């Protein structure tokens, strides 16, 4: 530690750290655009420049290391003028589209223009205007006109997700971000994770919205519109309404959905419990009959596409279980439709997901039967917030309500699916019961909790020692796959969630990649687990009833028809 002076105040700095890191710790704000925590700085945008005494030029604080005795001015006249110019230059090549933009009110560029009081267009545009709007992907829309070339999407995609679907193409004023050969995203190696959407400071990347279809269905008298909400949604939705991260508004959300006119509100955590019954059975089956191991979870559609295109040799390692979204979708249009006497073709089944890849998953041709899709429309957490706002629903005037039967009951194990490690914890609880006939002594499996990208543990189940790994972020998953390719043999079961941190930080969530917020979301799930009594999937009475009345047994005939699926090797340009 040594001292530096910032804006005439003495603060402490750690040798080797950057100016930005030192001043941020001291609570001094310096704006950034291209900077990404935990990744090497690219210094591309120059918005973070500061003035250092004795230096001729301004320095980018995101990449410039601190030196003992340095005197820094973060808000000197020169620094501010330089930042203003950077913003004005960015705006020169930008459409004045804020009113029609999905990021209106929530845009870094717009925010900076406001903070720095930009009131007129100083530079005429120099960029060609023939920009592409790529709406081919089922998950993501890319609008090059709004791209400020900060490169964050490129870096997340390559450095965090190890996909590298997109890159800078051409140079100078012609530069754009695009997939190889400037092909559209739907034929690229993009796995639809949406992490680039979270990273993007502008409206250049956004989800492909399904709000219109949902709205139309809600007003169609012939349609019976039901909705399910994923485990990770109730603990993040509040942020879209200005509440702090980690507040669970499950009951209020259900009440709002009912006001919106959905006939039934189901809880995807119910089908997470169902998934565990199937998946734990599958694991036990594989372990006891010498099936393909390690088994890998299959609830995360980005990860599935990743394996299909980059690691097709591991397709047989993927659990054949559909994701909870698809399981519930299939059960709604079979068991529920039958029970209620509704024609499945009349049911319009919506899901709220923390994820944009779920839109891709729902549209996979194998996710349905007889031309009836399991799921008709997927809304992200962000989209559902818009729907609620549009309808003028005020949370303050609502009282909490509960989800509808027969798919409204859930265990806290099912709820844990919303964060990294949750599927594993739920599966261990139930596998232990299935194998030993006894409950785990302590239900909490500490080793698989927390936000770390890779977590490993040896779990004792009776006489068996099971090697498990929990990975989030596909880049981390690829490392484990390489280890297994190279002969690693001690793993039996691997949970993979596509997004770093799991669904709570999914590509459809409120736009925050701040680790503290994500931690708060995760802890909201843990709190639910600690404060309720139904904590294992196999104890869910409604799941048991579903088996008694309809499915009969896990991995049975009906399950295979409705709850399991298969994967295909994909050729993509990669």
């Amino acid at each position, binding site marked *: 530690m040594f001292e530096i002076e910032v804006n005439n105040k003495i603060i402490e700095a750690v040798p080797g750290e950057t100016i930005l890191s030192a001043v941020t710790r001291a609570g001094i704000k310096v704006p950034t655009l291209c900077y990404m925590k935990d990744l090497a700085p690219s210094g591309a945008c120059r918005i973070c420049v500061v003035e250092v005494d004795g230096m001729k030029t301004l320095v980018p604080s995101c990449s410039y290391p601190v030196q003992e005795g340095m005197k820094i001015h973060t808000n000197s006249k020169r620094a501010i003028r330089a930042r203003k110019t950077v913003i004005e230059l960015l705006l020169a090549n930008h459409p004045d589209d804020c009113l029609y933009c999905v990021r209106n009110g929530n845009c870094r560029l717009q925010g900076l223009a406001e903070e720095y009081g930009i009131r007129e267009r100083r530079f005429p545009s120099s960029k060609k205007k023939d920009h592409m709007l790529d709406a081919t992907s089922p998950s993501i829309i890319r609008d090059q006109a709004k791209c400020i070339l900060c490169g964050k999407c490129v870096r997340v995609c*390559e450095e965090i997700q190890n*996909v*590298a*679907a*997109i*890159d*800078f*193409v*051409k*140079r100078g004023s012609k530069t754009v971000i*695009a*997939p*190889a*050969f*400037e092909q559209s995203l739907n034929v*690229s*190696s993009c796995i639809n994770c949406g992490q680039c959407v979270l990273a993007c400071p502008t409206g250049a990347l956004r989800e492909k919205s399904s709000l219109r279809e949902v709205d139309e269905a809600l007003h169609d008298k012939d349609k019976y519109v039901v909705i399910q909400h994923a485990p990770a949604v109730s603990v993040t939705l509040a942020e879209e309404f200005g509440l702090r991260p980690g507040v669970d508004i499950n009951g209020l959300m259900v009440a709002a959905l009912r006001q919106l006119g959905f006939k039934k509100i189901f809880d995807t955590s119910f089908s997470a419990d169902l998934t565990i019954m199937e998946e734990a059975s599958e694991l036990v089956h594989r372990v006891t009959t010498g099936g393909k191991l390690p088994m890998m979870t299959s609830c995360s559609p980005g990860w599935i596409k990743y394996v299909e295109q980059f690691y097709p040799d591991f397709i047989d390692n993927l659990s054949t279980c559909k994701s909870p979204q698809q399981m519930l979708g299939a059960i709604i249009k079979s068991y529920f439709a039958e029970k209620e006497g509704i024609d499945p073709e009349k049911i319009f089944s919506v899901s709220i997901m923390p994820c944009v890849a779920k839109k891709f998953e729902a549209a996979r041709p194998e996710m349905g039967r007889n031309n009836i899709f399991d799921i008709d429309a997927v809304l992200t957490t962000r989209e559902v917030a818009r729907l609620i706002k549009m309808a003028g629903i005020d949370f303050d005037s609502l009282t909490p309500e509960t989800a509808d039967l027969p798919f409204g009951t859930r265990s806290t194990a099912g709820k844990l699916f919303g964060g990294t490690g949750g599927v594993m914890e739920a599966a261990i609880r139930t596998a232990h019961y299935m194998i030993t006939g006894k409950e785990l002594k302590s239900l909490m499996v500490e080793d698989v909790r927390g936000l770390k990208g890779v977590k490993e543990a040896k779990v004792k189940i009776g006489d068996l020692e099971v090697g498990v790994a929990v990975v989030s972020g596909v880049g981390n998953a690829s490392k484990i796959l390489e280890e297994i390719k190279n002969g690693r043999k001690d793993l039996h079961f691997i949970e993979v969630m596509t997004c770093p941190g799991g669904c709570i930080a999914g590509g459809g969530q409120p736009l925050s990649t701040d680790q503290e917020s994500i931690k708060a979301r995760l802890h909201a799930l843990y709190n639910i687990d600690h404060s309720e009594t139904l904590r294992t999937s196999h104890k869910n009475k409604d799941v048991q009833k579903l088996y008694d009345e309809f499915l009969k047994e896990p991995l049975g005939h009906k399950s295979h028809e409705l709850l399991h699926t298969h994967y295909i090797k994909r050729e993509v*340009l*990669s």
Partner: protein
Amino acid sequence: MKEEIRKILEKHPDSKRDSLIPLLQAVQEVYGYLPKDAVVEIGKHLNLPASKIYGVATFYNQFRFQPKGKNHVMVCRGTACHVKGSLAVLEAIEQDLKIKAGQTSRDTLFSIEVVACMGACGLAPVISVNGEFHANVDPQKISEILDIYREEKKSAMEAANA
């Protein structure tokens, strides 16, 4: 084609990422452009994603991603030509042929390439078609010049059919 490309790559064993440009050049040497399959194969060879290779290749003007047309039009965009209005010349050609620089027309008759300097600054603005130079080009006269090659093509085809 994949086989052929692999043969080219075999001549460059143990290549690292820094040999990307020479590899792209070697492939373009053979095909006159960079076919998609080649980019994928080079990617496997160097362990680089296709998007990266495409990004690097488009950074340089020398690489093209479509085969050249039967008539290859090169437009000089060097300083002297620029001063004498080569941008207007390029735009006129693009408009006439309805393709952009780097592209090839659908009937494969024409392709356009932009080059930095052809070393004929005294003749600026200058273009060359199939290696034949045209000096002091006037954007208004572009169609006339291109017609020569359209005609040649037509008569050649007629001769072949006769």
